[in-house]
């Protein structure tokens, strides 16, 4: 263990890394978590042995580096995941991992969320700053040094957990070769401002072996975290963080996801000439800008909003569409046993259905789910039946079950995988019929969970429920499943049932045993609010609607909430649609709704067009609107 000495602390980091007080105790020499050499003996608690590492090659370590005089950034560790989690968390100071002295947790809340946030920062650091671990040239070293800065100052958030190696030889080497003539000064500044633990914390810095354990665990994606750390307390704040898993997933989905799969299958998109570029689609539909009610809606230069359909009824709860964009469905607020509606845009009719609400379409254009007295699962061919005039859900293309709960979302596994449905804790969202002045509540408790249902296609039978499983998602709800079934996103509950943002989780299923099991570790957290999101078919984007409040005044171009011109928004309310880049968290507002107008329930079709519903306070008619914003915003 190396003692940090003589370096004053001035930490310029994101809020979750801000250190409080930080004059805490130094781990004692017998602290199994942080002492060198014999400090982590193999004992009955299974503590790590720092002299027993088995280096294995990987992308982040180069044996050649030794021969070229470049110190290793880290030495890979072959310890199994479960044991590695305990070792790493013990180093970090987690009592549940056997640590007897505080360390990082002297200043930081050592929670699952904190660890995952650090992991997100670390992933970003590896992809953006620590880009040449072999330090192949002085120029490369200089680039990395420059990247460690946030503005003019070195920033812990730029190096993530790797800040714990600030005083190890690799970083010194980088500054020596990339820090210019005053590299020593630069390096000292880096250690002082970005190195962890902070100098005034009184805690020793890590040695190389300890850092190797930490680095290995974070690079593996912090496996086993939930098995070692206890459940987090109720969140009170939101700290954004996006792990590298998000971009990696998006890159994979770009070629393997349902957007591509629908292109492969020749899925014909509504309003498009076969084979035509999506940007040319829906060109004959009326531009919202040419209507009296939608003249002010456009907000993103170069994009167009088009009105696809206008109902003669008020819809109930959310609206969703088929992958090809031909069918749009929702509940209808009508006095009838047929309270479901399937709008066939091709035939320009709204087909009544003997159900209630909550449509969800499979991303391969093969079928859909709708709720009535039970969950109906039907093949898409039902909707393409010529002259279809009503849907009873007793048709041969439909099955039903009581397993899929309300507020469900569905997905289809890629490459011949099974179909999935997710549901769980939810808050109803049916705003915009009357003034709605805030996003839906999020009264999700510590016992909130998310339920997955596996639907298997059985010959001659249709969709059969073949297993369910739940995961604990405390203080989260309104789960939405990505088209592939490999991501879910939840709304997070904060104090008073107010939303704190969204949590994105990567989903994997273990189907090898007798019972279905799921894991869904957090891979990103977004700290803005809105309703239930929807993923794009390439899973690189999501869209949300957000009920406007006082905090939105400036974004809308007003001087503030007290601006007299904003007063009507405060009384009539409004909702806009936002497009979110999942890999960066960048958010773009797509609409400029007027007071009393609510752009709600946005969702994608397979080619990237975004559909949403527009409700207007006091009016029965609603509009189904399409936006081509993704093609401009997404490049």
């Amino acid at each position, binding site marked *: 263990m190396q003692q940090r000495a003589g370096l004053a602390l001035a930490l310029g980091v994101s809020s979750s890394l801000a250190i409080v007080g930080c004059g805490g105790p130094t781990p004692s020499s017998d602290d199994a978590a942080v002492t060198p050499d014999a400090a982590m003996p193999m004992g009955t608690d299974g503590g790590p042995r720092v002299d027993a590492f088995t280096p294995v090659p990987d992308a982040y370590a180069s044996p050649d580096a030794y021969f070229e005089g470049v110190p290793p950034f880290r030495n890979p560790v072959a310890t199994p995941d479960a044991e590695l989690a305990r070792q790493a968390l013990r180093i970090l100071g987690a009592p549940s991992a056997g640590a007897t002295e505080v360390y990082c947790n002297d200043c930081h809340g050592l929670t699952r969320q904190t660890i995952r946030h650090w992991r997100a920062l670390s992933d970003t650091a590896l992809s953006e700053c620590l880009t040449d671990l072999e330090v192949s040239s002085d120029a490369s070293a200089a680039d990395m040094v420059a990247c460690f800065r946030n503005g003019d100052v070195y920033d812990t958030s730029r190096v993530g957990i790797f800040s714990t190696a600030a005083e190890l030889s690799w970083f010194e080497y980088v500054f020596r070769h990339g820090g210019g003539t005053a590299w020593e000064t630069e390096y000292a500044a880096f250690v002082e401002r970005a190195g962890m633990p902070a100098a005034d914390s009184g805690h020793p810095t890590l040695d190389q072996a300890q850092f190797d354990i930490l680095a290995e665990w974070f690079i593996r994606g912090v496996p086993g975290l939930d098995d070692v750390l206890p459940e987090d307390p109720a969140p009170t704040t939101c700290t954004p963080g996006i792990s590298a898993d998000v971009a990696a997933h998006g890159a994979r989905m*770009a*070629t393997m996801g349902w957007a591509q799969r629908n*292109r492969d299958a020749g899925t014909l998109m509504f*309003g498009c*000439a076969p084979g035509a570029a999506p940007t040319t689609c829906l060109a004959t539909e009326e531009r919202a800008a040419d209507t009296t009610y939608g003249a002010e809606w456009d907000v993103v230069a170069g994009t167009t909003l088009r009105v696809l359909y206008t109902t003669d009824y008020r819809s109930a709860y959310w609206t969703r569409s088929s992958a090809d964009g031909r069918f749009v469905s929702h509940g209808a607020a009508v006095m009838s046993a047929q309270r479901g509606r399937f709008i066939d845009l091709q035939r320009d009719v709204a087909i009544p259905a003997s159900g209630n609400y909550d449509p969800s379409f499979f991303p391969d254009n093969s079928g859909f789910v709708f709720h009535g007295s039970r969950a109906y699962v039907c093949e898409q*061919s039902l909707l393409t039946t010529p002259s279809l005039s009503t849907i009873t859900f007793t048709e041969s293309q439909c099955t039903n079950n009581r397993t899929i709960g309300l507020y469900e979302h569905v997905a289809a596994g*890629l490459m011949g995988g099974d179909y999935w449905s997710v549901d769980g804790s939810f808050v109803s969202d049916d705003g915009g019929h009357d003034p709605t002045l805030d996003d839906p509540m999020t009264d999700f408790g510590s016992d909130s969970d998310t339920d997955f249902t596996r639907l298997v*296609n059985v010959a*001659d039978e249709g969709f059969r429920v073949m297993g369910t499983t739940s995961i604990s998602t405390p203080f989260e709800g309104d789960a939405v499943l990505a088209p592939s079934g490999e991501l879910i996103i939840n709304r997070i509950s904060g104090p008073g049932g107010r939303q704190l943002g969204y949590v994105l989780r990567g989903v994997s299923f273990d189907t090898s045993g007798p019972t279905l099991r799921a894991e869904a570790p957090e891979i990103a957290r977004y700290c803005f609010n809105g309703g239930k999101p929807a993923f794009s078919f390439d899973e690189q984007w999501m869209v949300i609607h957000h009920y406007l409040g006082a905090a939105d005044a400036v974004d809308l171009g007003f001087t503030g909430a007290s601006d007299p011109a904003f007063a009507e928004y405060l009384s009539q309310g409004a909702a806009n649609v936002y497009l979110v880049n999942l890999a960066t968290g960048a958010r773009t507002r797509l609409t400029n709704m007027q007071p009393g107008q609510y752009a709600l329930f946005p969702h994608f079709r397979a080619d990237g067009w975004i559909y949403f519903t527009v409700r207007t306070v006091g009016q029965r008619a609603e509009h189904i609107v399409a936006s081509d914003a993704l093609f401009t915003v997404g490049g």
Partner: protein
Amino acid sequence: MSRASLVARALPVLPVLGVVLGGCGRPSVEAPSCEELGVAIEASGPGERRVIGEAAPYEADAMLASRTNELATSQRARRAAAWSAVARVLAPVELAERTPVEGARLPAFRTWHDRDDVNRMFQHAYAGIGAERRRARSPFASAELDETIAWSPRAVDSIEGWTPERFEAFVGGLHDQRAIDALGGIRRVSMSSDAARHVLASYAEITRCLDGERPLPFVDGPPATRSLAHVPLAITRCHGTIEGPFFVASGASLRASVEAAADTRISVHRSDDGLVGDTVCDHEAACEVEGPGAFFVEVRAGAEDLAGTLDVEVSEPSRVAPDCLAASFPMGAVTIAAHWERADFGLRLPIFDTSAPAMRRRFDDGTFTWGAGDGDADPDDTSIYTMTLPAGATYRLAGMHVRTRELDHWLNITLWWSPDPDTDFGADRPASIEALGAPWGSYKMCVAIDFDEHDPDPSGGFAEDEPTLAAALAEVHDTQSWCSNPYIDAAPGLLRGNCVGCHQHAMGERAPGEIALDEIRFPNGGRTRTRNNEPADGFWSFDAGDDIGAVLRDTLTAWDAVD
């Protein structure tokens, strides 16, 4: 259809002739060288199609129709012909692309076209004919269809997102035979190239029937015609080629025509014990002759090299032209309806006892329904055809209908898996099937070619050598023919089906289950002929099963909005 294979099978001693023509020297003939609804989840995509290559040809037997009476009156001969067809359907074929599995091959039928293939090909062909022809629902030219079939394996190259690197990675992922077997996807219905080509050619008729009034059961009209051969030609000047022989029934006629240069001549010769006999027609460009008989068709190039296509068509006096197709399916058409059973989650495969006592028990209970099975099994991939999709889902091929258009009412074959495959309906399995290796020796088979059973012997001629088969056949022997698959024909009443009776109603607005149970309108469990107008020539899957008609209609609708 494969020209070479046709000739090789029908005329083993007469390979294609080289002919030197008059005017170019003395001519010298040298040594002749019933689907139910299902839910499909994983199609054979464009990447898979490129790996597979073009659909493997089905080697149709152009003389099988000459044996119609023999096949109708002899269960033994019928079953032998069926096993022969099965061997051709299952014959292993090489993949077009090299994969990590050295020497990887697929059964021929797994290379054939599914709904998604048809969709891609139809979109390609329809986009290419222009707005005016689309508005008029003009038929595709023969050359346009040929180009489309040939384009299919290359479709992936024109789809955004398929980079060479992605394709290479895709192929690299095909690391074992189960993955290779998954290349064909898991759609229920697949079609030989000739069948798929005919679907494309009939798009206007199919979609008109889908959205219009369904055809009447009885109509008067011209006899149906269908293609016996569609053969690309490349003949050097002063030379020729001979195709055939082709069987033409009494009352039927054969027409041969060539799209080629003006001085092309076409001749039709009688078959004389399998050798080229008397010339009965000799004209430019086209010839027509009356049956009965077997005929060779000869094409000769003039002073210029000849490049074109030979089309041989036959009229069918026993059939009227199908309302919902451009013509009857061609002789090389084969349709497959597969029944896949999931093999994961500990799911076991139901099994069906088809021995004589079991069949008697089933028929005696009066429901004419196969039921849930007589037990279950957990066969491995050495005894049942098994594939694993890339996501890990594993499926077993429990049964499959194989229908070939070599006969007027099709050669209707069905196969089902059995844990004791060498008894009753598997007892006469020939060496040609056993030679294919595992798992094809685990399937039993029945066949029907007509509404009625004309073999007077209930045991089908197997009493002496295959007693278990003889006994089982005796249990199902009736005045109507019988053939039913316990997995595919699971709906109530279909136990006593015969394929032919059910398939006559395809696109006739009646579902198989309805036909089997409505004894007033469809007597004898639907086995009796109740219409002369078979609008879809017996192919159910235009508006049922994989709903192939719907994908055609969707493309028309999309273009209608543009055109």
